[in-house]
């Protein structure tokens, strides 16, 4: 009797333990959702939820945008006290993973989507479908084509940045350029320097600075991409038709080592020689601090840095110019860049009404105006009252905004590390390749090898 009782107790205990452990593993936070018959109210434009809701938002790390979103969310919760927005911010390189896991768990409501660069041209063979396209095709991203707030936005931006297969999936936060260079106005003024409009003038500015023991440029070289991305700006500056150039590389009409392209390699090598010593050990996170502290007169980067520069030192005077080409044109060298991220909703979220309320709130001119003035991007809504001096200053070089070449070119699958314009591979930037010609030959060799396999 005693033994059988012990057996029974042991079995019950073990079973209970096992179940507890297994159940413990499967427990997840139940999202606060609206009830199956949500209390809603319809105003002129949008259906309003009255139930308490927590909207979960995910963002990649960009201090200015994160701060502006925080302010926007606070304002939104004041207007709709029943809705709170909880935001999770991760480093850019980890955003895709976060998006994937949150969507898989159904643990997100508002997220960053990007539809502007997912079209694959006919001439680029064997390309994998972009992950954003996969999420959209899987029905994960909310279709907002027929929402009334869409009409508040610039139709061109909606078409080019937020539309996929004829449907709208997001609201684009603004355009950014990254074919240019920030410059310290005080240093330029003190040394009698003018904003360069040709390549020759740019080199003269660098030489003049060097002759006065002023470091011409700094960049976040440790992270590689802040310098590497500048090649794209060179193509925009020196190639009259970047689309034809990208296609030509695939068809064989153009080569990385043909005489016209070699000019760009030479220019890039020259450009690389004016960075501060040890630039490849400068962390991207610290480069704005170095620029504001006057450790270099110029800093090539995207316009997205503008508000962080102002935050670092509100009295710091700076401007931005595009990498110039050889000849002076009727207009100063123009900006090239991209539409930045768009905000969209999770299509299978139970909080759809609240998501649409948030998107509607973001689409209101006064709210977007505050947001865009805070982040310093080029607006994607017309008729915005621009108070941000930096955005105003971009006007003369924003008359003919082009798509950055980086978004036009498509690398063949499996392409080697030298293909493209890998200026970080040059010895002057700590790489192993001595001359631009040598790098161009290697680029073409890697490109040809990958093309042969794709075809």
């Amino acid at each position: 009797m005693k033994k059988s009782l012990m057996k029974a107790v042991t079995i019950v205990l073990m079973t209970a333990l096992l179940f507890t452990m297994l159940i413990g593993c499967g427990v997840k936070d139940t999202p606060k959702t609206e009830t199956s018959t949500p209390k809603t109210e319809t105003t002129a434009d949008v259906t309003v939820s009255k139930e308490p809701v927590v909207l979960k938002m995910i963002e990649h790390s960009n201090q200015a945008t994160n701060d502006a979103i925080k302010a926007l969310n606070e304002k939104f919760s004041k207007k709709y006290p029943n809705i709170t927005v909880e935001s999770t911010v991760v480093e850019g390189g980890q955003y895709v993973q976060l998006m994937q896991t949150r969507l898989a768990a159904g643990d997100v409501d508002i997220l960053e989507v990007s539809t502007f660069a997912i079209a694959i041209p006919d001439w680029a063979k064997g390309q994998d479908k972009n992950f954003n396209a996969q999420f959209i095709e899987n029905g994960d991203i909310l279709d907002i084509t027929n929402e009334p707030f869409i009409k508040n936005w610039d139709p061109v931006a909606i078409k080019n940045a937020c539309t996929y297969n004829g449907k709208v999936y997001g609201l684009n936060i603004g355009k950014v350029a990254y074919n240019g260079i920030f410059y310290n106005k005080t240093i330029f003024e003190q040394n009698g320097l003018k904003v360069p409009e040709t390549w020759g003038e740019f080199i003269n500015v660098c030489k003049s600075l060097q002759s006065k023991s002023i470091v011409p440029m700094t960049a976040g070289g440790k992270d590689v991409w802040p310098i590497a991305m500048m090649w794209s700006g060179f193509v925009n500056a020196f190639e009259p038709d970047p689309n034809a150039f990208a296609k030509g590389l695939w068809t064989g009409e153009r080569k990385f080592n043909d005489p016209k392209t070699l000019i760009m390699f030479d220019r890039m090598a020259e450009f690389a020689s004016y960075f501060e010593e040890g630039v490849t050990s400068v962390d991207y996170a610290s480069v704005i601090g170095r620029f504001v502290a006057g450790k270099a007169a110029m800093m090539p980067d995207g316009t997205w840095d503008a508000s962080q520069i102002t935050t670092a030192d509100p009295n710091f005077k700076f401007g931005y110019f595009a990498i110039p080409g050889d000849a002076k044109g009727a207009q100063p060298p123009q900006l090239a860049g991209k539409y930045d991220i768009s905000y969209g909703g999770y299509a299978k979220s139970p909080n759809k009404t609240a998501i649409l309320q948030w998107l509607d709130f973001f689409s209101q001119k006064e709210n977007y105006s505050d947001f865009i003035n805070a982040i310093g991007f080029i607006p994607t809504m017309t008729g915005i009252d621009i108070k941000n001096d930096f955005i105003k200053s971009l006007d003369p070089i924003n008359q003919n905004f082009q798509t950055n070449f980086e978004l036009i070119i498509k690398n063949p699958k499996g392409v080697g590390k030298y293909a493209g314009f890998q200026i970080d591979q040059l010895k002057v930037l700590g790489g192993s390749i001595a001359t631009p010609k040598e790098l161009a030959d290697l680029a073409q060799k890697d490109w040809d090898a990958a093309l042969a396999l794709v075809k």
Partner: protein
Amino acid sequence: MMLTKTSWNKRIIILCMLPAILFYLLLGIIPSFLTFIFSFTNISGILNVSWKFIGLANYKEFLLLQNYRDTINTIERTIIFAFAVTLIQNILALLVALLLNNNMLKGRNFSRAVVFLPSVLGVTVTCYVWTLFFTLDGPASTFLQWFGLHSSFFGSQTAAFPLVIFVQIWMSLGYAMVIYLAGLQGIPTEIYESGIIDGTTPSQAFRMITLPMLWPTITVNVLMSVIGSLSVVQTIVLITGGANNTDTLAMRIYNSAFGVGKQIQQISGSTLRQGYAAAQSMVLFVIILIFTIAAQYLMSRRDKQI
């Protein structure tokens, strides 16, 4: 039917082991088996997206369609990383353990805690500390400048990889040392005392007593280091993101599967390709298996000789 005490005890043992076995099956064996299956599919990792079997296409892409030179370089780097970490970490850990096992040493416990501290700090803190240490205006750079020297450290295509290896060793030295310490303390002092009576020198005592008695511990540590270092990802992600010639095979797998890293498009063409990542994982598994078997064979052969 009455159960005997022995058979009852066996059942209790099995019952007690059952949760652990279930967890091992659920979290170890089944995912590994599924990874093998998924390596023959085009699964993306996006929930509910349809996928299909594509035969050996993922293996063909990795072994034949990627740039041959870059693939070989990555595999070479993976092996160099594992070899350097295993060798240096174990030699240093053994030396430190021998030193800190000495009863004569003052502040022994404090020293042990200091050596073990990096293991407690965790990968993120450790990587952040070393990134700051090796930045342009950091202490390392200032030190080199005193001698008129300069390095870009983690930003250098030649220095970044050895420095990542250094950080990995610094971080995991403590664990290896603790295991060696445990092994050293398991050696009966009587054997050393007998040796002293027989006139052994300290170096003879190390070769003839310590090393043979410690061999099983060395085997465990070496195998753990080989397996661990071949699949290291976090250190590389946090310090360089795979840039500056620091990407290993495990890093590439992460790139393909989750889009983590700084050269995502360049390396894998696109992200969220978990079928392709699974195929690369299988290649890494084969490499780990070969090295583990080779290490185990060499260690056991040496064990028999001893």
